[in-house]
């Protein structure tokens, strides 16, 4: 068996483990999904305040924000909480002792997070389409999908950067993750254009990859923008991911080194 096969099987072991956990916690999964659907429909219904001529477009504008945020937050949570989850169960020492590269471990977490996020978002999308009787005629769904896939990389990179926080500090790391996620929600123009943000927040919004994911997805679905039109954004998102993943991995490795020095690589941390 080659080293690559060992690493590949290790990544898939993580995916299988998470799938098994979802099966065991199916009741909670159903409850969270129900909440996601209701939350997205509620956000879409805000558009009822608009005049009838603008209502359909506003529903789509808001729902796109809710769906993409749903996907990105699931991915972000899965990656950033992977270490926290191992701490809760007490398995962290065994997983960190496994003879695999850290990228393999985190790669498995990211593959799972992407698949799980896409599946959950697909369920919510189905509910939204049925509820609002949305017409997607003229929308470039393929282009929107490309944008989503391109943005995966940068969100994985961001997830890796914050996954290190629970490694450094069990309690405060998890708290910091919540705060960071809240800031990304605020600055990325999920439900409004970032021009609505005051100065410093607007500047942060310009730096958030989610801003470009949302803008490009809206322009593909609402404006029917062609793939050629979306290419610069797609390339920008891929470029951001190509930079952010190694940076995230580097930060994680440094954090792990610190945890090993400080004796925090254990259940209580």
């Amino acid at each position, binding site marked *: 068996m080659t080293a690559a096969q*060992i690493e590949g099987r*290790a990544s898939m*072991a993580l995916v299988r*483990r998470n799938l098994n*956990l979802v099966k065991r916690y199916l009741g909670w999964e159903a409850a969270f999904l129900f909440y996601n659907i209701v939350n997205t429909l509620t956000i879409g219904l805000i558009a009822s305040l608009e005049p009838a001529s603008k209502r359909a477009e506003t529903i789509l504008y808001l729902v796109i924000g809710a769906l993409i945020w749903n996907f990105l937050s699931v991915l972000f949570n899965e990656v950033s909480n992977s270490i926290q989850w191992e701490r809760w*169960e007490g398995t962290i020492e065994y997983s960190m002792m496994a*003879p695999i590269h850290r990228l393999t471990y985190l790669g498995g977490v990211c593959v799972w997070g992407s698949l799980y996020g896409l599946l959950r978002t697909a369920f919510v999308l189905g509910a939204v389409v049925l509820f609002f009787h949305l017409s997607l005629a003229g929308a470039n769904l393929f282009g929107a999908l490309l944008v989503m896939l391109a943005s995966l990389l940068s969100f994985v990179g961001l997830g890796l950067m914050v996954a290190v926080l629970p490694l450094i500090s*069990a309690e405060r790391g998890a708290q910091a993750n919540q705060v960071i996620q809240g800031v990304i929600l605020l600055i990325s123009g999920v439900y409004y254009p970032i021009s609505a943000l005051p100065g410093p927040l607007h500047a942060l919004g310009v730096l958030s990859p989610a801003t470009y994911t949302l803008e490009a997805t809206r322009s593909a679905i609402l404006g029917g923008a062609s793939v050629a039109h979306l290419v610069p954004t797609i390339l920008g998102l891929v470029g951001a991911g190509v930079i952010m993943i190694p940076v995230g991995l580097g930060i994680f490795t440094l954090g792990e080194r610190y945890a090993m020095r400080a*004796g925090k690589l254990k259940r209580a941390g």
Partner: protein
Amino acid sequence: MSGLARAPSVFSGEADLLTFWAEGSSPRPFFVLKEVAPILDLAVEVKGAVKSFWETESGGEVGLLPIRRRRTLALKGVSFEVRRGEIFGILGANGAGKSTLIRLIATLLLPDAGEVRVFGMDVTRHQLEVRRHINRVSVEASFFKKLSAYENLDYAAGLYGRTRREVMAEAVAILSDLGLPEKKLRAPLENLSRGQQQKVAIARAMLTSPTLMLLDEPTTGLDPRSKKDVQAFVEEIRDHHDSTTILTTHDMREAERLCDRVAIIHDGAFLALGTPSELVERHAPEGDLEEAFLQIMGKPMEEIEEAIEIS
């Protein structure tokens, strides 16, 4: 056996070169290390290992109060060697430094000073290579509690590149040796007793064919039957596998029965080291290992037990 070829086949010593081959991956070696000649008979070398931690005195993780911390020395320059195939016991009260030592060898901690080598490989510089040779059973059988034993074993062994089919067949055999019926493999871990969970923890370690097994109080808190099963299994590993074991325990009878040599650790330093009979002869010629332990510690058992309770 899967993954990397395990010892003894793992070592192909040529001059000063040590080559590790991955099964089926010839002609390229998996990795090559120098500095070999004197290591083949030694599983573990610890030279002057020092480890300290910052401990919280007030405030703390949960609150927002400023934290006051003090530095405590967990290991004060510990040195010892463990020969291949040996069962090496480390005895001491809670907080003496046993688990810190085990976690240093397990690559979960970095030493402040000193050197820790596993099969000649430095645990700070060759972590990945060391990890291929070790596994650990700790006092807490840490698992995903909602998952079944099989699902937990599939995950843990999967991280070492084992396939599901291999895991299932081997897990049934190992757990049967440990006296755990096959039907328990499908039950969520939270439904198994403490002793049964510890048997699954031993299976988790054995599935990766470790050449160095780190057993950190594996029988603490087990009922007599489970304790006996686990001890018998450790003996079986010694008799039938090319594996070295480091065992920490509070149980003197267990140490006497299983260990080839024992070290007594107190407050981060080794107070004595030798075979159980040597220690008895030296410190309690009329008694047993427990007597020798008490003599070495210089305290009556009640005081030591009280210290254990408090810590």
